[in-house]
């Protein structure tokens, strides 16, 4: 029997790791991820989860230990945020290049300096080229559901890549709301057991992992990751659909979610928890007779370019919200990716919510009225003080 608990996003993540019956956890506490590792430590201490919890001395070692454990054939989980993710940077490439399906929860938080513990998505966006699959979830329920799906996706033979599940720091990590927790039995039936065929260290099968990638093979290994990313698009949809059928919860098609798009000329494109606020604003405008759509990018890597192009084919004004900024070009990452996908349309970039700047209802309303009169390619910083 499933049960509903009123819990935080970090607790939902920990519950998911427990349901996935992970074998090894290696994590280092960092705000606002901390309560996730605390919860997991509690599960292990109480015998609710049979796992080795490695209390590492840094995030770099957290990811290193996860790689070692995953390379030995263990299902592995870690969680981090912001500076911790930045410290892992080097190891993220390695986890992906070695094709190890580690699952990580990242509590999205701004990067220093100045030091800021609050939410934006600069941390994970800055890791977009590491070869990790990246999800951005809207609420705590989706956090749990996506982590369960992440194991299936990452461990799928056509994929074999690590998966990062991003939830907005504080806005989700420290917010309690009702979350349906599947029964252990149903979760296990869905997630299954990790039995790697490609990578596991065992004296009965002496393989060499992490060799020197000489110029004769390096490009091919990179291309293989790109192919795996391409494969992942199909796998993500399939596993999402299977999950939806089994647990009666769905998130668009798994890659993107369309909301009120049918009759909307103006469409907002965004990722993460702000999509909840946007949906609320859309409903309120609808009551007043105004149609605005939302295209939520749930999966950012692999980038679902085809799905996005199709979803936006009738849109006239496209407002892309970025909780990150590529300094020196004055554009956010989602905009840049989208602009290379959607041509011949007006796409306007809005830099929002950096370092915990609240994205209010009025901000969304302002963006909607702005995008209708703005010029293609403009960038506006929303909520910026004079």
């Amino acid at each position, binding site marked *: 029997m499933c049960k*509903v608990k*009123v819990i935080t996003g970090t607790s939902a993540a920990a519950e998911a790791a427990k349901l996935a019956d992970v074998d090894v956890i290696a994590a280092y506490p960092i705000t*606002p991820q901390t309560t996730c590792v605390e919860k997991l430590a509690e599960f292990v201490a109480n015998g609710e989860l049979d796992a080795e919890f490695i209390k590492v001395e840094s995030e770099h070692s957290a990811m290193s230990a996860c790689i070692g454990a995953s390379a030995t054939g263990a299902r592995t989980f870690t969680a981090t945020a912001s500076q911790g993710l930045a410290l892992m940077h080097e190891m993220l490439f390695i986890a992906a290049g070695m094709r190890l399906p580690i699952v990580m929860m990242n509590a999205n938080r701004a990067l220093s300096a100045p030091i800021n*513990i*609050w939410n934006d998505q600069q941390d994970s966006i800055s890791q977009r080229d590491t070869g990790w699959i990246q999800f951005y979830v809207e*609420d705590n329920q989706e956090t749990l559901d996506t982590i369960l799906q992440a194991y299936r996706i990452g461990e799928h033979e056509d994929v074999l890549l690590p998966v990062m599940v991003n939830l*907005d720091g*504080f*806005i989700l990590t*420290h*917010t*309690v*709301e*009702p979350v349906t927790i599947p029964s252990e039995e149903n979760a296990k039936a869905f997630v299954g057991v990790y039995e790697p065929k490609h990578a596991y260290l065992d004296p009965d099968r002496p393989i060499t992992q992490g060799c020197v990638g000489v110029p004769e093979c390096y490009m091919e290994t990179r291309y293989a990751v790109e192919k795996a990313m391409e494969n992942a698009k199909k796998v993500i949809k399939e596993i999402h659909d299977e999950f939806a059928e089994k647990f009666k919860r769905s998130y668009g098609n798994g890659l993107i979610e369309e909301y009120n798009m049918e009759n909307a000329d103006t469409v907002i494109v965004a990722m993460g*928890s*702000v999509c*909840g*606020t946007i*949906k*609320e604003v859309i409903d309120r405008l609808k009551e007043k007779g105004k149609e605005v759509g939302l295209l939520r990018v749930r999966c950012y890597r692999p980038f679902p370019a085809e799905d996005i192009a199709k979803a936006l084919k009738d849109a006239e004004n496209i407002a892309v919200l970025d909780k990150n900024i590529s300094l020196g070009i004055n554009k956010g990452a989602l905009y840049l990716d989208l602009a290379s996908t959607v041509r011949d349309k007006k796409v306007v970039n809005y830099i929002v919510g950096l370092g*915990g700047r*609240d*994205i*209010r*209802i009025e901000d969304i309303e302002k963006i909607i009225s702005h995008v209708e009169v703005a010029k293609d390619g403009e960038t506006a910083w929303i909520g910026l003080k004079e």
Partner: protein
Amino acid sequence: MIEIRFHGRGGQGAVTAAQILAKAAFYDGKYCQAFPFFGVERRGAPVMAFTRIDDKKIRLRCQIYEPDYVVVQDATLLDSVDVTSGLKNDGKVIINTVKDIKLGDYDTYCIDATGIALDVLGVPIVNTTMLGAFAGVTGEVSIESLKKAIMETFPAKLGEKNAKAAEVAYEAMIEKYKK
């Protein structure tokens, strides 16, 4: 949707109060959301926490600027914090104080929560007491659900005591403000 803002001091359990209220609303069959004000404040500093309650799924992720209710756990906060900031015109304030005060034109409900907490719990921690007062004044959550949420939050003995404190405050408020 109703929105509630809690004012307290770091360490007084304002965040826990907001979460318990959310759980209680959930047990009443409603949707809920509770979150702290994400600050850097430590023990003793003025802090805030928020709860949203609605009949449908709550999707709003912005902070609460115009609450329907304000719960003030500590009257000494009134000197330094504008507790009624943004409070809707027909909003209500519930304050822990031994005096009878009125904040602006707002319906203001006063309770000696510290007294009740000392009596029942033996410590001046008022978060659960104030929740009982909130339930008594507003009727937004049932006392049964509130007690259930409290019992679930604290370990056995402590849970019972806190539920009792809430109930005492609940009844005191009904008694005091019955129309």
